[in-house]
């Protein structure tokens, strides 16, 4: 039998197809093993193999009655390379009567193959990837029925390989989609949070976002920004829901709070304006009303510290970590959810941050996390933890919270945003000039 001429471009495409299949898995799995054992039984032959042929090697994918190492060899001398040369079955009734076949080590050496029959495995693109082979150690003939069955088996191998390729492609596509969604979520998240907090003279500010899920955008938000004169506004909150709708709502809430604060920075008025905007946003819509919880505050330099006026709308209490030790809740009692209630009540409360004091704002992902006992951590649990940790400043405070979240592990089931503000313990900043302040 003469080796047919090989079109080199077509051969390159064929080898590429072979490599796609070869990259899928390791040989020796159940489906191909069943094909070889069936082929051997149909021919009443001791040996059957499934081989694929790349540019240099004949590679064994399954072998029955033959060790795998004997099943594979150099393409140039292998009997199994010839089946890919043409469509239809190849039969060598006696290998010793065929000079080319006699060069195969399986013929000249172990196991001493004398009879060989093969049907090509034809991929969907028409490329012959390899073959299903049957061998015997004595010369013989093959019946038409047997050869037809061999072709059917080769077609089954094709089907199996196509299926695996399709499955691998699906997995790869899914992985790509998931990576894309994660990238989008992270990008969106970045646009919802300020890239960096501004430098406020005499104040240290730090913020962190602890996402619960990599591919689900949460609705936590925060910001710190200049108001009129030397006052600063800050807020932190959480919108109802997750995903793209929550992200859009978060963006609306953030810009509304900043705009409302420029118009009138009174904290309760800012929250009331946000409430009105959210109600308007929902007017005429049938879906669940958008709502959020938030804390909005105004910082005003006062001596070597700041006065803080804080309004709350249905949000967990802020915590003041005092320089002298001890943690106090700073909670405007009775503030209600924003955007969902008729005539909601917003409340505000004042406190002072002196040198060495820090203020922590957080979302309920932190306080609703479950501790080892199964109970919610709660504001009291957080306050007790911070009292023991006694963080020195805003950055230290965030480190403490980070450690706490890490230690809660599986108990955490939601995103957590934290914003920490602190006044340096011993202020080296220039004295404040505050013409607007009394």
């Amino acid at each position, binding site marked *: 039998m003469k080796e047919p001429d090989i079109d080199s471009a077509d051969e390159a495409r064929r080898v590429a197809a072979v490599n796609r299949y070869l990259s899928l898995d390791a040989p020796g799995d159940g489906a191909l093993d069943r094909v070889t054992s069936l082929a051997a039984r149909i021919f009443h032959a001791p040996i059957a193999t499934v081989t694929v042929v790349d540019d240099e090697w004949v590679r064994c994918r399954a072998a029955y009655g033959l060790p795998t190492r004997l099943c594979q060899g150099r393409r140039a001398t292998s009997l199994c390379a010839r089946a890919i040369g043409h469509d239809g079955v190849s039969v060598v009734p006696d290998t010793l009567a065929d000079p080319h076949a006699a060069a195969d080590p399986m013929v000249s050496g172990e196991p001493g193959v004398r009879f060989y029959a093969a049907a090509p495995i034809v991929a969907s693109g028409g490329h012959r990837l390899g073959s299903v082979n049957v061998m015997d150690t004595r010369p013989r003939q093959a019946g038409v029925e047997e050869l037809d069955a061999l072709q059917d088996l080769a077609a089954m191998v094709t089907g199996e390989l196509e299926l695996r390729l399709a499955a691998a492609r699906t997995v790869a596509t899914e992985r790509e989609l998931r990576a894309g969604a994660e990238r989008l979520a992270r990008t969106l998240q970045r646009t919802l949070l300020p890239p960096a907090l501004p430098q406020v003279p005499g104040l240290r500010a730090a913020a962190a976002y602890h996402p619960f899920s990599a591919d689900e955008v949460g609705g936590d938000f925060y910001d710190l920004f200049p108001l009129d004169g030397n006052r600063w506004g800050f807020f932190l909150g959480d919108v*109802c*829901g*997750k995903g793209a709708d929550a992200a859009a709502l978060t963006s609306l809430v953030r810009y509304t709070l900043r705009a409302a604060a420029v118009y009138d920075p009174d904290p309760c008025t800012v929250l009331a304006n946000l409430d009105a905007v959210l109600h308007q946003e929902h007017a005429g819509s049938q879906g*669940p*009303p958008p*709502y959020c*919880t938030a804390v909005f505050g105004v910082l005003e330099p006062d001596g070597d510290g700041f006065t803080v006026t804080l309004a709350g*709308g*249905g*949000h*967990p*209490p802020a915590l003041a970590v005092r320089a002298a030790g001890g943690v106090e809740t700073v909670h405007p009692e*009775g*503030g*209600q*959810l924003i955007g*969902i*209630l*008729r005539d*909601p*009540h917003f409340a505000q409360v004042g406190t002072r941050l002196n040198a060495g004091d820090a203020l922590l704002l957080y979302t*309920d992902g932190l306080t*609703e996390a479950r501790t080892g006992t199964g109970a*919610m951590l*709660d504001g009291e649990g957080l306050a007790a933890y911070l009292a023991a940790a006694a963080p020195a400043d805003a950055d230290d405070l965030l480190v403490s919270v980070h450690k706490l979240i890490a230690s809660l592990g599986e108990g955490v*089931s939601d995103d957590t945003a934290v914003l920490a503000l602190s006044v340096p313990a011993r202020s080296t900043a220039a004295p404040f000039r505050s013409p607007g302040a009394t």
Partner: protein
Amino acid sequence: MRHDHGLTITHRSHSTRVQVLVVAGDLDHHTAPRLREALDGVRLERGAGLVIDLSALTFCDSTGISVLVAAHQYAQNAGAVLALAGLDADLAHVFRIMGLDRLFSSYDDAEKAIAALQ
């Protein structure tokens, strides 16, 4: 945390004046629309009372809370009164933080809520 306990809602009339919705299971993003539908099916006359019994509630997320707020507004529009019964300690705590304790009348169990609305 995955919540897949499902939600069952049972509606019964306790008297001509008071109806009871027993909400059991997880009230979340997926199941909340069913409570909304159930509420649409409750006819409230002026002066009537509706008790939502939450004693068998296993989970309530922000969407669930918004449906409870909607129920309150629905009752208010009808000139009726809504009472919640059997809130567990965690949910009661969340309601306090959200300022919803000022909105809802809440009772330890359905019997006490029904008695208050009679």
